[in-house]
């Protein structure tokens, strides 16, 4: 060819321009990944930055004179007297003694440093130890939320400090004296919700989530696996089977809130089941997770090689025996992995639960499947809507707990897939 030389020349000349394009294209790809990863990092940093203080509580440790006369109490075993007695006064007096500059005239300002629930704590401790009456004890109480906010966020513009100048000076002094201390927030893990941020905890929501997840798991796993077995192994090739498959594929993509509508209309209004209970939440989440579990279980069954089936059938096993003795155990790791991922999805789900009333303000830790409850993501939603920053901080902390659960579940799924799944 006469023009091979000149064409090679043309190609060579075009190279610079083309490689520039190549580099630009590659840069777009890197930029896209950078954007996505940056979003992930910012999200985590934001939540940790907002929420790590949620894991700290502020307490007051002081010598309390449990003076029966001051409290109008002479028998700490008498229920009626305990109800009427004044448990606030000893705390206020104790704190005034800790603040040299405070006088009896400042008692209201001093009282506002103590958590409103501290008196309940004192009453409960005294009820357990009636002999403490008319003694002096060193005890630790929660500080008021305003003190908590001041102790953790003084100088942070986002937080409005509600303490007066005088109170701030006292708290500074008390911190130096070791009366006001910040420590690990065990209250957060031991309580249900509360109107007072310092008292609010996630135990109720965690238990609610566990109950709901338990219902979801025991329903969705067996049903999902059974449905997958039917569709992969027994279903005849007909219109009905096709229809079932179309339904499953579509349900997998139906917005979760639609399942909430289903739960409201069918379980609550039609069947008259109670609102806000883990059983109904579990039922709704079961319907929502089933498609995921069915689809992943089918994939797991499909990956079992036909040679295994043939081997078992060859020695006269029935179809059901082949499936239950050979296919199912071999497909189990894959099914479990898919189910864990489905469960993780369900654990983070919020929208459908709002519609079935799991959004109520519930203080008590639920004690059964038919007890009003909320779940962790809904608790996050409730706190996130609060105008008080002290609740926002707890919402972030709750998110961290939720993400810890989710990440461990996903890590478990990945580990199982690596560890147990066989390659054929």
């Amino acid at each position, binding site marked *: 060819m006469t023009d091979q030389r000149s064409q090679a020349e*043309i*190609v*060579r000349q075009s190279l610079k321009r083309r490689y520039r394009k190549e580099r630009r294209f590659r840069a777009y790809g890197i930029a896209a990944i950078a954007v996505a990863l940056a979003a992930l990092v910012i999200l985590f940093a934001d939540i940790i930055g907002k929420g790590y203080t949620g894991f700290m509580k502020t307490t007051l440790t002081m010598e309390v004179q449990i003076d029966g006369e001051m409290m109008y109490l002479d028998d700490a075993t008498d229920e009626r007297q305990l109800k009427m007695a004044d448990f606030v006064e000893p705390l206020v007096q104790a704190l005034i003694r800790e603040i040299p500059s405070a006088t009896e005239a400042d008692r209201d300002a001093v009282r506002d440093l103590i958590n409103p629930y501290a008196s309940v704590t004192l009453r409960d401790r005294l009820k357990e130890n009636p002999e403490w009456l008319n003694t002096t004890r060193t005890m630790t109480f929660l500080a008021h939320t305003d003190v908590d906010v001041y102790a953790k966020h003084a100088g942070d513009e986002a937080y409005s400090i509600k303490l007066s100048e005088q109170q701030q000076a006292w708290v500074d002094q008390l911190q130096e004296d070791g009366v006001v201390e910040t420590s690990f927030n065990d209250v957060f893990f031991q309580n249900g919700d509360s109107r007072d941020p310092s008292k609010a905890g996630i135990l109720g929501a965690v238990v609610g989530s566990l109950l709901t997840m338990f219902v979801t798991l025991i329903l969705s796993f067996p049903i999902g696996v059974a449905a997958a077995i039917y569709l992969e192994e027994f279903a005849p090739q007909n219109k009905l089977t096709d229809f079932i498959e179309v339904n499953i594929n579509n349900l997998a993509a139906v917005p979760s809130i639609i399942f909430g509508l289903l739960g409201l209309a069918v379980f609550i209004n039609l069947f008259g089941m109670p609102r806000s209970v883990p059983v109904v939440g579990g039922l709704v989440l079961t319907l929502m997770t089933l498609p995921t579990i069915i689809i992943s279980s089918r994939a797991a069954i499909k990956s079992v090689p036909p040679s295994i089936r043939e081997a078992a059938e060859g020695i006269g096993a029935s179809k059901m025996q082949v499936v239950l003795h050979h296919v199912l155990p071999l497909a189990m790791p894959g099914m479990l992995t898919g189910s864990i991922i489905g469960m993780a999805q369900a654990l983070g789900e919020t929208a459908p639960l709002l519609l079935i009333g799991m959004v109520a303000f519930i203080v008590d830790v639920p004690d059964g499947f038919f007890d009003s409850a909320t779940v962790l993501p809904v608790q996050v939603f409730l706190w996130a809507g609060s105008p008080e920053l002290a609740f926002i901080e707890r919402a972030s902390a709750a998110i961290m707990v939720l993400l810890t659960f989710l990440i461990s579940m996903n890590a478990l799924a990945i580990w199982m897939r690596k560890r147990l799944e066989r390659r054929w």
Partner: protein
Amino acid sequence: MNTLNTTVTSEAEMPEENVVPVQEEKPAETVIEEGKTVGRPFSDDAKFKLRNVEVFYGQDRAIKNISLDIARNEVIAFIGPSGCGKSTFLRCLNRMNDSIDICRVKGSLHLDDQDIYDPKRDVVELRARVGMVFQKPNPFPKSIYDNVAYGPRIHGLANRKSDLDDIVENSLRKAGLWEEVKDRLDATATGMSGGQQQRLCIARAIAVSPEVVLMDEPCSALDPIATAKVEELIAELSESYTIVIVTHSMQQAARVSHRTAYFHLGHLVEVNETNKVFTSPEHELTESYITGRFG
């Protein structure tokens, strides 16, 4: 993965698997001396000068110390039992092995005295000069016209639409496809017959006016009539291009090539004029292979 590429890569990626049975059938007394090739491996007017070429897949040595010249405007056929490394060797010539992560190439490979594996060497330019046709026809899911025009377009070979039309027509004519498709250049290429698709791929390769065309078993997926047409085409193309063809079929090698190279277990055992190889092979392995003792 798709069925289209498995056949190509399986041979390239897993040379060892197929080797084992061959080894068993090999006449026991035959010893291959590494780096020693009988016949006429070298040429005075070399397009490719290849010396001491070795190819590794991870730890496995797939090509063992091969030296060979490929002359200008000759048709050279690579034959040998499957898994012998002929495809791997072919793919070194335009660095198609680059896309396989674990593949490393050693030795000196020169095209017109320029090092192919020079790190500064441009793959794009190399491939524009060394075209390739694959085992299975792989037309792009575009129109016939766009398939042929693809190369000239990306390389900027045509300034005007009419130039491009000329290139497309010429390439299709050379590929013997023009008369069959001139009325339906806008039809999608995937709707053609297998033989037509393969000739289209040849047209696509020659549309960028390469100096060399590599053909990796171009007829293995075609029926006999389509094969005959492609072979005819190869004969015509040999006037203006250097052609390296890997083939399973000894008849095909005999029909189309000037020289034939016999590969065995990664060694280049014998290279010679095609009629010599098929009538009086010098090496006993070559003889066993062409007489059908194994392969």
